[in-house]
């Protein structure tokens, strides 16, 4: 039931209503609405109960295992949010003079330094407000670099076929033609096809490592050599940074530019449409082109914004101030809480949990998409055999998991692998929790053979049963009408 359906004409909420009415005489009449806004007219108690009930229907990481992982939402420690909400931070005005913002600027400067260190890059800008904007900033810098050298023949960005859809979209947004590079049977880039594809037209290659196939691109140094020898630059998509945090640095792999999703890896819930933070890191080649503002440190230890005057070759500004301050602060606190010792532990446990799940699920009868490869922080099962034998597909298994109290993993991505489940447990799950998930998966596998209709009809225990996603996509209608 929607809040609008509780509405009764004239029902008001006196304890919440302002006693005085705003003076609107100064607003020209053509800018004033002729009719009252169609807001729900409900009592305070109705509002409280409505939203409390809705929140109880949520399937959330606070209540259940959520194997979408850092890709969508890993556990974000409460402390990070609590500290980012200190009044000294929330009360700061973004236009306040630098002398009043030294504490905040200090945190941002240190965050820049921490991110440089953990990624092996030479400079960082925190400005991009989301992963996609980080990608846009990164590829814009690639373009600015080639343009500054008068190298205007480079019109093509290479993207592996397993890439996130944002990669080709970003390249196209920046005016490049996209060329897809196929993946071989082990999930690595096909090096022969890459060699054949590069040339004087290559502006760069965008790569996620570990890839979306859940494997570490083991020929990365060879990939780097091929792209660099052709005069192209190497772009690192930080979507899977969680797997290598503090262990392997993209800078050491030869990447020229990287974006990080702080809202995935560094303690802010993601998957709700924002806000996000997609800082970019670069090596010396691309340093002059970083988006502004950046926080600089003076010789006397004070901090100040670096702007157009300091960075004349910058690709420019991507937001009114400097990104989403709250997300950046949470990331800073998260990084400081983990410390240099804690950061690799994130990667170690995320990888250990994924490999444990993959090994146990294979033992109980599931098929790994890349059985010869060790999982990174995530891995892929292919349910093609199960579908051929029983008619039960990946979506059916995902829906049935809800009945057992587990959120479904990512389904049907990447599309290269038929009937796939992409499972990412993250570093914060205990062995008992993982064992519970394995038991549920095993039960579903047995049900698929003994009673496939049960699995195909799932879920049975959720607030709503299986939704008709085809009808929703074909007849999109988001407007409630009385």
């Amino acid at each position: 039931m929607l809040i609008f359906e509780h509405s009764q004409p004239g029902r008001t909420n006196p304890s919440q209503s302002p006693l005085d009415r705003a003076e609107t005489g100064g607003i020209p009449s053509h800018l004033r609405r002729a009719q009252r806004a169609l807001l729900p007219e409900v009592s305070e108690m109705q509002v409280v109960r409505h939203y409390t009930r809705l929140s109880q229907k949520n399937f959330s990481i606070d209540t259940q295992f959520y194997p979408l992982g850092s890709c969508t939402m890993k556990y974000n420690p409460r402390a990070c949010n609590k500290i980012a909400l200190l009044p000294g931070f929330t009360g700061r005005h973004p236009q306040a003079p630098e002398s009043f913002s030294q504490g905040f600027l200090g945190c941002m400067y240190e965050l820049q330094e921490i991110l440089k260190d953990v990624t092996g890059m030479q400079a960082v800008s925190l400005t991009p407000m989301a992963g996609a904007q980080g990608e846009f900033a990164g590829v814009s810098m690639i373009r600015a670099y080639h343009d500054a050298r008068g190298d205007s023949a480079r019109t093509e960005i290479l993207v592996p076929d397993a890439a996130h859809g944002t990669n080709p979209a970003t390249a196209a947004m920046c005016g490049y033609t996209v060329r897809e590079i196929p993946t071989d049977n082990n999930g690595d880039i096909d090096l022969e096809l890459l060699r054949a594809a590069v040339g004087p037209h290559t502006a760069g290659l965008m790569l996620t490592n570990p890839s979306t196939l859940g494997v570490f691109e083991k020929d990365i140094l060879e990939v780097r050599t091929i792209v660099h020898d052709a005069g192209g630059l190497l772009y690192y998509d930080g979507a899977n940074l969680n797997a290598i945090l503090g262990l392997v640095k993209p800078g050491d792999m030869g990447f020229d530019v990287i974006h990080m999703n702080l809202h995935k890896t560094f303690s802010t819930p993601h998957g709700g449409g924002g806000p996000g933070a997609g800082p970019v890191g670069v090596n010396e080649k691309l340093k002059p082109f970083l988006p502004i503002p950046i926080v600089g440190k003076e010789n006397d230890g004070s901090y100040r914004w670096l702007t157009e005057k300091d960075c004349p070759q910058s690709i420019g500004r991507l937001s009114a101030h400097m990104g989403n301050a709250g997300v950046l602060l949470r990331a800073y606190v998260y990084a400081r809480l983990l410390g240099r010792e804690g950061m690799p532990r994130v990667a170690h446990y995320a990888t250990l949990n994924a490999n444990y799940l993959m090994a146990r699920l294979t033992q109980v009868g599931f098929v790994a998409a890349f059985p010869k490869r060790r999982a990174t922080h995530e891995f892929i099962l292919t349910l093609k055999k199960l579908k051929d034998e029983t008619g039960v597909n990946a979506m059916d298994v995902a829906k049935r998991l809800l009945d057992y109290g587990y959120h479904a993993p990512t389904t049907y991505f990447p599309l290269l692998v038929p009937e796939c489940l992409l499972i990412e447990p993250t570093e914060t799950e205990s062995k008992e929790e993982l064992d519970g998930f394995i038991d549920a998966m095993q039960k579903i596998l047995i049900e698929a053979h003994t009673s496939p209709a049960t699995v195909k009809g799932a879920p049975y225990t959720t607030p709503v049963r299986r939704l008709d996603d085809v009808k929703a996509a074909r007849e999109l209608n988001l407007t409630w009408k009385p």
Partner: protein
Amino acid sequence: MSNIPKHLKYTKTHEWVEVQKDGTVTIGITDHAQDLLGDVVFIDVPQVGRELKAGEACAVVESVKAASDIYSPVAGKVTAVNGALTDQPELVNKDAYGTAWMLRLKPSNPPELNNLLDADAYASFIASEAH
């Protein structure tokens, strides 16, 4: 097993091609492709008159799982598109080789048609892809 009619030609990107008597070619996606995609919810076809290169992305098929580009199997000029797919994208799932044809081309370099796969070669290709 997928339905792979003998009289058509195929691409490794899962388009089918039918050569008409007047030399134009009709293009759609294969039964195997629609099975992989699942329920199709949206189709974007090119403008009539557009000149396409072989391998150029010329249409988009969106399903509940993913949005996928459709690539032109040969170079040529678009002479017709199937407007019925705008309102009935589900035709792709029901009748991939018939009413769900997507576009017609007048090939600018007809010998390119010899590079396409025959039904047997396409069948072995999709068998090899299922790793």
